């Protein structure tokens, strides 16, 4: 029962996060914004449609959306909400989580290359670079969590961590911060990518899925939302654990991540493409620093 509630909460979050972002942006721009269930009905509409395939594509192109959606679903099923346990829990599932993310990405990259379009090739090359650069940050974040808690099992990590000292609170807050940054990169938000842009030459994620329509596009969108909800949940879990807060606040924090993204997108311009690598490496650098700090704290090494 508990596990089903966890899953339902994450699915609802997955539906709410894209809406919250666009609603925040709309409010800050002085617009009314979309209906709260708009993305949901758009996707239902897409699911009812068929798919059109270019004659230059092969089976890789056709299976990629399913792989992407599948990997996101399985990854999502491993994420706990506060102390609520997820459906899948086993030792080492943090590693599996990272690789499921990578699997989904690899599938999309291959599919984009498969179309033979010069745009999509460019998008794929960018996605591969940013994916490769952000992966260490994800591993280090989850590694730090595993280090502090002494477990490599997501469902235990957050219930085992005792953030009794001020130092540990800071470490958990930084984990929350880095997770938000990872969310920005993985979800292709400003400053890395601009999901609203119509300019193919500047796109990263959007350009890779240009050739998809109907049910395939819906799969990719749903996969994307679930992925976003999982990462936002990690951030929210880290912050609530830091202050040993109630579970309802965990959900609120996950939505706060979306609001933060919305505010950032409203007041900042996206970065130059060439600067993105530096930006992502900075995230990794902070993650690395955090890992060592957590290590020294745990071993009580005096510096």
């Amino acid at each position, binding site marked *: 029962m508990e596990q089903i509630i966890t899953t339902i909460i994450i699915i609802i979050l997955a539906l709410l996060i894209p809406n919250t972002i666009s609603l925040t*942006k709309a409010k*800050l*721009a*002085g*617009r009314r914004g979309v209906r709260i269930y708009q993305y949901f009905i758009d996707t239902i509409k897409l699911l009812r449609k068929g798919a059109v395939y270019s004659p230059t594509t092969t089976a890789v192109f056709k299976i990629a959306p399913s792989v992407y959606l599948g990997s996101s679903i399985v990854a999502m099923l491993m994420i706990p909400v506060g102390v609520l346990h997820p459906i899948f829990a086993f030792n080492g599932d943090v590693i599996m989580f990272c690789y499921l993310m990578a699997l989904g990405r690899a599938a999309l990259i291959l599919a984009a290359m498969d179309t033979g379009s*010069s*745009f999509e*090739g*460019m998008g794929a*090359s960018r996605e591969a670079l940013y994916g490769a650069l952000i992966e260490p940050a994800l591993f280090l974040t989850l590694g730090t969590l595993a280090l502090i808690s002494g477990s490599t099992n997501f469902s235990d990590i957050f219930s085992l961590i005792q953030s009794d000292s001020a130092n540990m609170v800071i470490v958990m807050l930084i984990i929350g911060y880095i997770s938000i940054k990872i969310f920005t990169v993985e979800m292709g938000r*400003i*400053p890395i990518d*601009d999901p*609203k*842009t*119509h*300019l*193919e*030459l*500047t796109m990263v994620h959007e350009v890779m899925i240009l050739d998809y329509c109907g049910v395939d596009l819906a799969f990719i969108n749903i996969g994307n939302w679930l992925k976003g909800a999982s990462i936002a949940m990690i951030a929210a879990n880290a912050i609530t654990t830091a202050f040993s807060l109630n579970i309802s606040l965990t959900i609120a924090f996950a939505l706060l991540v979306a609001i933060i993204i919305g505010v950032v*997108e*409203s*007041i*900042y*311009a*996206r*970065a*130059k*493409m*060439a*600067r993105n690598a530096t930006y992502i490496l900075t995230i990794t650098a902070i993650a690395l620093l955090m890992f060592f700090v957590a290590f020294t704290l745990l071993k009580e090494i005096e510096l």
Partner: protein
Amino acid sequence: MSWLRLKNCGKAINLDQIPNIEYPEFYQNLVEMLEDENFHIADYFGYSTTEGLKLIAIILDDKNSDILIAEHTYHYYCEDSLLSITAKCEAMHPFERDITERYGIVFKNNPWNKPLRFLANRFDKRMIIEKYPFYQISGETLHEVNVGPIHAGIIEPGAFRFTCNGEKVLHLEVALGYQHRGVEEVMCSTKSTLKQNIIAENIAGDSAVSNAIAYSTNIEKLSANLNNNSKQLNTERAIAQEMERIAMHIADTGALCGDIGYQLGQVACEALRTITINTTQMWCGNRFGKSIIRPCGTNFPLNNEICSEIKKNMSDVLKRYDEIRQNIKNTPSVIARFEACGTVDRNIALHIGAVGVCAKASGLLRDIRATHPYGEYKNMNHVPIIKTYGDVMSRLTIRCREVLQSIEYVLSLVDKIDTSIVQSRPIYNNNLMQNAISVSIVEGWRGEICHTAITNSQGEICCYKVKDPSIHNWLALSLAVRGEGISDFPICNKSFSLSYCGHDL
């Protein structure tokens, strides 16, 4: 030098007053003048007559506010092929390419006589679309990206072919010429001045007022029996033109912000542009100012109500736009995108004959309102805004400051309007001078627009030539993106904001 000197606000002249020069001298003069930065080419075109093809060159002398004009009559069968001026002065390239594809004259030593508006060459039938001479660079690490031929945002046709090394652009080739509207031919196919005026308004939808002013001025210059326009009419035209400039510059500011995902700037500019064009709509019923400009008079004289509305809205726009401008200037993430991006240095701008915002951003004074004032601008003593870096930020800054400057102009001009004066109505049945040529140059928001009208012995317009500023500046875009990341192309493109339809007449 035997070139005829005209003034931008002078009358039309007879065709036989144009000095006819032999090609060696013609060539020599053009090369000498264009090497001097005080001169630049306004238009150079062929005009077919019974005596042969007349190549008419119109040069602007920015120092003395003169328009220089001369012609060479080319006899196709009894003259050697002509030496290419482009080989010495790059600024001539669009004109020579145009003459080649229209009349089949091949200029000797032309570095790259690529078709200008036709994908296949009309005179060399072996040239077909499959063999379109795209520039090619080969290499293991290079790849080509073709964008277009339909622009995803504005739905106008133009193909951009990039040769890239990874994310870096080595070369961009702009291929235009997808729409053949035959503007110049349609202009001559009708005798109705009103119809011609409406066609002129539609040469480029975003420069309706500027093109209409250029056309109307030509008709007024050719109307021998007419007195000068009333002062008030000129003032109203200047107001209309400045309003067009304000609206388009604000739109471009917004679009630039949109391209980098800077939402705050984008939405604010969109709102202000709407206020501006709605004010124009209140004036004449059209948001782009179509139908304000008519020869010798106006159907929409300004009254007290419109004047106060313009003043109210423009003061509002002035205040709010200044805030956005400060915001843009003070947001590091925005500056990081715009500065040192898409740089066109002064020397390049000079060589390719850049005009308008592009030239002014590279430290080159090219502003007809200052160098060849017409209408109300004669009394205004306009001082152009010049920047020297030539990057996207400079072009944006020029736009921003021109908006503020233009609003100041509009506010002061509206004060001068005396609404008690009864304005004359437009005159459409003028008797035009016979066998005459009239050149009218206007500073549109994009740069100088040059219209040339030639009448036949019945006093009807038999040749109408239009030059949009974009024709010079498209090359600047190609050069600006060299060495930039391909993802910066959209902001470079938007910062020039060139016209597709102005190019594909």
